[in-house]
């Protein structure tokens, strides 16, 4: 009766499964939508197509990410090992909506102040923010080749819940950046990590930013030339998040570096040990290895 009951259960669950689309059976058991390589692979396995066509990204943003890819990986796609940082994921978002607050004045280097809305839906709970920058693209070969001093006024607001309410200001942030710009520069990066860290950590799905950027030539270096100059460049900035994906399917650099130093007996054993024994575990580990040595 035990066996027959077991068979009955198996038959029942098989019936249930047969009604469900085969692809959904392949989904990760915890049901979370893991944005990454697996869901599309499962999709291809189940019916060969890869779902709806994708929105095409901004070409300048794509050019930047291709440059980053070449810096991080070989032609065959192997991550270069000469990198010290820990991020295994970099996401570039272009603003999904923008609203001009005040007109700019390009001859004086003041850019139009705009409200930009970034949708961070693709960031998973397993991805922890390590660094974040606003990326301005210089879309013409701008003529200046000297130090540029920029003042950036950044206000992060709570996206409006309805058209009637005004967005609540979450953080206001003004900082001066000085950077060398030359003919070869195509991008300006403004670090906004401290501003975004709490928002990404609290799983904010969209971020509204009001950005006001004014750049002038550094008077000290070039007293002769006029202080302001024509900046025919900047399109609205992209937001780049450098993340450490802690999920099992992501590559953990520190993990392989750690195990390179400690050749383990059995290749499989590497995977089962904890990455870094901490606290009493470390002590326990020390004691047990002491036992092992004595034995």
């Amino acid at each position, binding site marked *: 009766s035990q066996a027959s009951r077991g068979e009955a259960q198996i038959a029942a669950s098989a019936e249930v499964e047969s009604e469900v689309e085969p692809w959904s059976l392949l989904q990760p058991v915890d049901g979370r939508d893991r*944005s*990454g*390589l697996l869901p*599309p692979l499962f999709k*291809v396995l189940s019916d060969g197509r*890869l*779902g*709806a*066509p*994708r*929105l*095409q*990204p901004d070409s300048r*943003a*794509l050019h930047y*990410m*291709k440059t*980053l*890819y070449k810096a*991080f*990986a070989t*032609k*065959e*796609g*192997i*991550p270069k090992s000469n990198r010290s940082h820990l991020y*295994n*994921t*970099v*996401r*570039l*978002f*272009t603003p*999904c909506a923008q609203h001009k607050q005040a007109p700019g004045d390009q001859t004086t280097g003041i850019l139009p102040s705009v409200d930009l809305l970034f*949708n961070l*839906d*693709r960031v998973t709970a397993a991805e922890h923010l390590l660094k974040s920058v606003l990326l301005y693209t210089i879309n013409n070969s701008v003529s200046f080749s000297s130090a540029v001093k920029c003042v950036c006024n950044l206000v992060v607001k709570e996206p409006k819940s309805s058209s009637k309410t005004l967005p609540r200001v979450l953080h206001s942030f003004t900082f001066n950046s000085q950077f060398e710009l030359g003919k070869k520069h195509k991008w300006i990066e403004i670090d906004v990590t401290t501003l975004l860290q709490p928002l990404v950590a609290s799983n904010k799905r969209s971020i509204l930013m009001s950005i006001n950027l004014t750049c002038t030539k550094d008077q000290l270096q070039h007293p002769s030339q006029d202080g302001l100059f024509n900046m025919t460049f900047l399109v609205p900035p992209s937001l780049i998040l450098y993340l450490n*994906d802690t999920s*099992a*399917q*992501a*590559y*953990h*650099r520190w993990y392989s570096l750690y195990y390179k130093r400690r050749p383990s007996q*059995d*290749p499989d054993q590497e995977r089962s040990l904890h990455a870094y024994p901490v606290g009493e575990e470390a002590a326990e580990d020390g004691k047990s290895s002491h036992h092992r040595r004595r034995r």
Partner: protein
Amino acid sequence: GQETVISELKKPLVPASFNLSEYFKRFLFPQNECALHDFRLSFSQLKWENWIVAPHRYNPRYCKGDCPRAVGHRYGSPVHTMVQNIIYEKLDSSVPRPSCVPAKYSPLSVLTIEPDGSIAYKEYEDMIATKCTCR
């Protein structure tokens, strides 16, 4: 006793019927031994080029071939592998012979375009087989 020694020395070392290459084939190194093979694919073959921007070529590699009967340390196989082989040969051939499978992998970096138009650079674990074993 010199004649005895000389006649002994003249005898062939192994019985005429014994064939060395047969021995190797049967006991030590099968012809198509378990080994790593290349399989270079481009994502456009899978019609994924509108999703995966880089790399253009991807060689996941795979393991294929027969596992020698006495695998021992050659593949980092546990003793269980030989036990399973003996079961297959001597006791019950419905038990499968040991299989040639990947033992180690290396990661792969991919640049993808997400459904919302954002761009993601990600490094995935275990995407390229780098070593085979018999299990």
